[in-house]
């Protein structure tokens, strides 16, 4: 196989957890959630993060009793047919995330970075960028993200904090927004968007111990959730409810507002470096997982010949929706359906593990 067993550490794990969740930071989610929930929107990333982290912790408990990765455990607990079905389901999950990411990235490029580029060139370019990285393997993806993480976080925080003169705290009140009952349905959507964190369990044998997976989930997802929530808070303080619900790219708009003096303004072009890197890496990670699961399903020896074909299919599928509003609508519906893979299925496995593993002892940690 492409990877070496048992060698990825917490650093790569954090990298993978971050890359699957940080793309939602650059999306339109703040404005949608703000429209439905009002100033309570900043609680949503915490709820979504908690749900995802608890799902990973439940699965880590399962790993302590049954060896293998997610598909192998499903085979042991729920049978071979269920394992194949789940494999197919997760292929669908990651494939759809990759398709929507390519489309969103292309749309963002046409909106912000290169307004006059051809749509075909942009989406093919991103497909190419992701395909080259899939050849390199998952370990390299995790490492690059861990390497770039201080710069990413630093740049985002810089642009958030330099809009300090425009913050008006009272716009975070009335704190219940449109009512507390709106919290549940919106958190479900965001949790589904972060379903990719299951990647940590699909590649579980490549990580050193179950504790690595838990630490990676906690720090990676937790950190991104705090950042996401901070972005919500700054967005609400800067734009307030009504003006904020109109924006399509909230973080970009915050970056455009930065005006410290005559020289520190117009910094949003630096952001292009940031979200292009993050976007391509997340597409690559999703494609790699999708191909890996495909090879698990069909017992292929390697995934390398499939990479150009699957990339091309992904790019073509991403061009299907004719306009951006349909893309956003479809994306929100499909991300909602990912909630099953993000939380419900780990709970099912956990319950099955408790029932079946009552007599099994937990294995001790290696080292």
């Amino acid at each position, binding site marked *: 196989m492409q990877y070496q067993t048992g060698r990825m550490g917490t650093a790569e794990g954090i990298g993978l957890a971050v890359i699957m969740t940080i793309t939602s930071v650059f999306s339109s989610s703040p404005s949608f959630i703000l429209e439905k929930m009002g100033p309570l929107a900043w609680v949503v990333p915490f709820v979504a993060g908690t749900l995802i982290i608890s799902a990973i912790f439940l699965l880590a408990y399962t790993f302590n009793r049954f060896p293998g990765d997610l598909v192998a455990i499903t085979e042991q607990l729920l049978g071979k047919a269920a394992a194949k079905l789940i494999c197919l389901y997760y292929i669908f999950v990651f494939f759809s995330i990759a398709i929507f990411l390519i489309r969103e990235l292309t749309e963002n490029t046409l909106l912000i*970075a290169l307004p006059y580029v051809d749509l075909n060139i942009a989406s093919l370019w991103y497909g190419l960028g992701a395909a080259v990285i899939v050849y390199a393997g998952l370990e*390299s993806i995790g490492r*690059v993200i861990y390497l770039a993480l201080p710069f990413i976080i630093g740049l985002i925080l810089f642009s958030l904090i330099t809009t300090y003169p425009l913050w008006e705290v009272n716009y975070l009140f009335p704190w219940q927004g449109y009512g507390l009952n709106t919290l549940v349905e919106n958190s479900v959507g965001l949790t589904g968007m972060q379903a990719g964190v299951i990647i940590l369990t699909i590649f579980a044998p490549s990580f050193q111990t179950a504790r690595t997976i838990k630490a990676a989930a906690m720090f990676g997802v937790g950190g991104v959730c705090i950042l996401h929530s901070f972005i919500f808070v700054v967005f609400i303080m800067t734009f307030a409810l009504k003006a904020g619900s109109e924006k399509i790219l909230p973080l970009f708009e915050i970056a455009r507002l930065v005006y410290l003096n005559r020289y520190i*303004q117009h910094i949003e072009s630096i952001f292009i*470096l940031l979200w*292009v890197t993050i976007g391509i890496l997340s597409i690559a990670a999703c494609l790699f997982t999708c191909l890996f699961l495909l090879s698990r399903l069909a017992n292929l*020896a390697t995934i390398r010949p499939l990479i150009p074909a699957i990339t091309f299919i992904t790019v073509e599928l991403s061009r299907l929706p004719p306009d951006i509003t349909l893309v956003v609508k479809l994306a929100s519906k499909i991300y909602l359906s990912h909630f099953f893979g993000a939380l419900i299925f780990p709970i099912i496995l956990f319950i099955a593990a408790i029932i079946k593993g009552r007599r099994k002892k937990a294995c001790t940690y290696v080292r």
Partner: protein
Amino acid sequence: MVDNIVFKLYRSAKNILGYQPPSIPSPFVLDEQRPYDSLPRVDLLPNNEKSLADLAALLRYANRLQDFAGRMDTVLRSNVWTEHAKEIHLEFAALEKQLSELTPVLLRYDQSNITHNFQRLSTSISENKKILADIYHLPRNTDIIIRDFSIAGTPRIQAFAVFIEGMVDNDFLNTSMFHPLMLFDDSRKLYNNDFIERIIKECLPSTQAKRSDSFDMLVASVNSGATALIFDGIDEAIIVDTSGWEHRGVDRPQIEQSVQGSQAAFSENFRINTGLIRSMLRTSDLVIETVKVGTRSQINCAIIYIDSIANATLVNETRRRIRGIATDYLGDTGELMQFIEDHPSIPFPQSLSTERPDRVAGHLVEGRIAILLEGNPFVHIVPVSFFTFFHSAEDFSLKPIVVNFMRILRLFGALISTLLPSFYIAISYFHQEALPTELLLAIAGSRENVPFPAWFEIFIMELSFELIREAGIRVPGFLGSSVGIVGALILGQAAVFAHIVSPIIVIIVASTGLASFGIPEYRMASAIRIIRFIFLILAANLGLVGLATLLLWIAILLCRMKSFGVPYMTPVVPKTLSGYDVVLRGPVFQQWSRPDALNVKDQRRQPLISRVWKNFNRRND
């Protein structure tokens, strides 16, 4: 089931469509689960009580022997031998018998001493040779010479001399040591009286000669260039000072100048180079193995490492790779490294090349391996990580704050030299809103009379800068350095006046070139020069999107590379303990451990408190 055409077709389709990857051996990865990586711990010897009992028995025997000798002394002096003869005989026989019983204990005690250094010489010449072979890891160590000879006299005395070739003065050895011992007066009877004293006083016309009976002093002197003479039947050795390695006959370093620090560099002679390294690291654990490379003309290639630190798997792998080169003639270390590297086609260097012995010594102590080829003054050190290329030779001789500032400056320079021209092109073509208005209008105004597009201007100026740099290497003598930068700037100024380029391009290209000179390693700077052009092409085509994509691809490439089994971006990713010397450097008294990624045998380099004087009260002496 019956094997008919349906299944045959299915199988042939599967063979065509189902791709089986070619079976190549898995790449070499230096990891932790090997059996012989760490030294066996001395304090974990089993059977502690048993050894205590053995030692007690030996002590009792010694006491008994001492009593017996005292009694013998009084008996013989007081001349009452005849009465006590029988009991003395009996006691003697009993002592001999006890000795034979205790001999296995004695042997076990002797052999369990891991380090021979506190051992005394034995009277048997072959025993001494065996102990010396153990200490110096013979026959792997090929420049420790054991030279057997016999001394003129009646009878002819067998002896051997131990010295390190390359550190001794050969003329002196021949004329003043071997000549008088081997060729003069045949009729001396040397075994009478004090043999050693007679040899020293009568036969060795050398300036310094002393005697020693323990191995630690012998080994320490031989490591410093002395010669030890060991004789058959005598349990002492003569140590003659014959040191004569090359010092300051070697030249100054050509490309690795340093303000403070030694100014010696390697030369082309093999033994001179190994002598220089030996002079820096005077320990018996330093092993210099010689392998011959090339089939038609065999050149010496040395693998240098410290045996008690370097990982044995790494050493074996290096040896395997060098032995596995099959070529006619290999004359250059660069060629050699390309034969044995993990990724020879990627321009980023995977080994550190240096011409300074102090740098080599520093890296050897950290657990790395040095590869030296005869006829080439550059030594390559493996395995290295990406951040090692931004350390310079005198990083540890200056204070931390100064050094950290310089290191950050170098990394910043590397970033600028890669990205600045492409950044300018991307922003000026696609993202014009990122420039401040005055700067934007100033550049736009100055481009008014320039007929070429911006990417062409940068391309021309970069190309001419590279040409000037290449020309500056070949211009002889004192003109060489002045042609370089000054020529470039004057050329740029003239180009601006002729309205071929705009002024800001000259500034950008000049800063880029200067920044690339700040990188200490020449091959890393060359790699960055190459990828700078690819960045230019992508930035002119796709703006910051192209720039970001290529930056990402280069980062993925760096994270995927290995240098002799060690990942290239250690210790940042994958995260390993590093000792405080990766990007920034910590104080010298906090460098406790060697780099974790090298999986060395002995992790600890200095104790936690390395400035012992600080924690004790000052005394008045």
